[in-house]
């Protein structure tokens, strides 16, 4: 089945995608007492925690920023982007296995499932980003028009995470190890990305290793935008962009080649 055909079949199911997104958002937030605030409480409690623990150590390392809130802004810019990456990746990787019951019994385009996961993750991200912008306005850190530069950065991030996630999702059907591995990899990956700390505190040899991590330029770009109110260093984003395209291609290729075997294996 050609890719264009499977995408157009998925488009025909947009009604199903939208109602699933709506249901998932509703069930995620209406089942609990605090509802939608959980989407905010979780990341912000982490931010408060890291701020309290690391603020005094890290602040001197943020050049030209003396305000005590600077480290928190730095943290938000990195952590919120990382959370989007980690949510997209972990949701995508399990998507076929967790919906096995449905895939085995109903014939529908399988690509609708990752589409639902992506839309839900993006919706959550949009809410939290809006709150973040509000916070920046209040504390006088709002970067102005340059905030729009975050959109292409996020687009690269989403492409990268979804491509890797789709590749993982297909392999995960045949080797469930992927899912277990992912939880561990995400832990290490988080600490090998300058989110809580700054690149400057790293010894040179570790910093040299980090150039291979495609999340570094993305996170740094977000920090540039929101802490320093300046355009990201665009050429540095070519590496994650290249990887994003590569993984999306590989993910779609794996899906195309193995898509028919998925239901047989579930």
């Amino acid at each position, binding site marked *: 089945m050609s890719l264009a055909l499977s995408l157009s079949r998925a488009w025909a199911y947009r009604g199903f995608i939208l109602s699933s997104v709506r*249901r998932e958002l509703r069930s995620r937030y209406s089942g609990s007492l605090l509802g939608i605030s959980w989407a905010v409480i979780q990341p912000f409690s982490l931010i408060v925690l890291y701020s309290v623990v690391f603020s005094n150590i890290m602040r001197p390392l943020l050049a030209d920023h003396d305000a005590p809130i600077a480290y928190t802004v730095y943290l938000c810019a990195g952590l919120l982007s990382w959370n989007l990456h980690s949510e997209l990746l972990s949701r995508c990787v399990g998507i076929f296995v967790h919906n096995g019951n449905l895939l085995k019994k109903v*014939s529908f385009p399988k690509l609708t499932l990752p589409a639902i996961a992506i839309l839900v993750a993006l919706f959550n991200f949009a809410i939290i980003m809006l709150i973040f912008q509000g916070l920046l306005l209040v504390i006088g850190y709002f970067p102005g028009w340059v905030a729009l530069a975050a959109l292409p950065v996020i687009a690269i991030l989403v492409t990268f995470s979804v491509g890797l996630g789709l590749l993982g999702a297909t392999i995960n059907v045949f080797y469930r190890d992927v899912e277990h591995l992912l939880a561990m990899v995400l832990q290490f990956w988080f600490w090998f990305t300058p989110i809580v700390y700054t690149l400057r505190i790293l010894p040179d040899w570790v910093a040299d290793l980090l150039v291979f991590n495609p999340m570094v330029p993305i996170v740094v770009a977000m920090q540039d935008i929101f802490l320093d109110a300046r355009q990201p260093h665009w050429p540095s984003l070519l590496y994650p962009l290249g990887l994003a395209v590569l993984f999306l291609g590989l993910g779609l290729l794996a899906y195309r080649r193995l898509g028919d075997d998925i239901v*047989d294996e579930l």
Partner: protein
Amino acid sequence: MGHIRATHLGKAYKRYPHRWGRAAEWLGLGCHHTPHWVLHDINLDIAPGEAVGIIGLNGAGKSTLLKLITGTSRPTCGQVEVGGRVSALLELGIGFHPEFTGRQNVWNAARLAGLEPAQIQACMPDIQAFADIGDYLDQPVRTYSSGMQVRLAFAVATATRPDVLVVDEALAVGDVFFQQKCFERIQAFREQGTTLLFVSHAMSTVYTLCDRALLLEGGHVTCDDEPRRVIDLYNARLASQGAQGELQVATGGEGDAPVGSYGNDQARITGVEILHNEQPVHALPADSEVTVRITAAFQAPVADPHVGLQVRDRRGEILYMTHTHGQGLRIGPVSAGAVVQVDYRFRASLIPGDYTLTVGIADQAMPGGHVRRSLVRRQDAAGFTLTRNLDAPHWDGLCNLAPTCRIQRINEGSPASG
């Protein structure tokens, strides 16, 4: 709309000798799997509005065939073409999510079936009424019994009339009232032109619903005919499984014994006679005495032979069956050359019509009225016609319960007020 056409359809699952075989194949390191064929060269042509039952033992490939037809699984070779909208209940469900409520699942399934929100809204009262699960509709599906899940699944799958309805075993879970309701709905759809594909182990359902049946054996369609002949063959295969040596099962070819007969060289049925007033007859009045005389001849010693009888109606449904062991009798050991005659004398308490008799010989009684090994079976060895008996009380239905009827006038009322 509603046709199903399969040409040279085949399905093989990939089997890998070790876990890493698949990964090696992905990396282009040669072919590591062996195909495990579950369906071979299936050719089908089902016309719109036909109702086709698929029968066969577990593992014969029934569910796989349905999956290929509904499109959840892809064929390894050949093609399948289905016209129009397909609604399917595969493996007892339509993919409900256990954590979502029944109502959310209904929406989910209906959207997947291509219904618009307004249509779903309009169908909801009907789905609710048909599933009849009350407040459970707003509870998570994980709290449902399997019967409730099937009720809801069937209600959703048939909320709007599909061009093809595929039902895999689903109805076996529901209670008898729900089954009735489902049958009525299926019948109504059929009258409007829906094609039905139906997998069941309940043969009576296949008789009732289908006008054609397929027998799947080891991934091949071995019989494609009217339900009666296919079911006879299937039953014969089942019964002959416990038999000694190879049994030749007749498949209804030219000059062959009726479909479903089989035998070996240990015993033979040499005669089946129907007697009424000590005279051989072909027709007799309903509700009168009849004797079925079966003659069995043995070519080899048999330790514990038993002779059995089935009465079947015109559609092939078994109305009554028993054997000498079931009647608490014992023939005793027989040696080669022995001939045994067994008489079954009963009142033909059946409605007027045509009936056939299937007779068989088995060896070794088992507790609970069963026999261990079937030796010979003669499908439809004899037949008789029951005519209307004007002397007997009039009745209708399946069996004569021969009631005693009493009338009591409790209150006479007053003629003036009427």
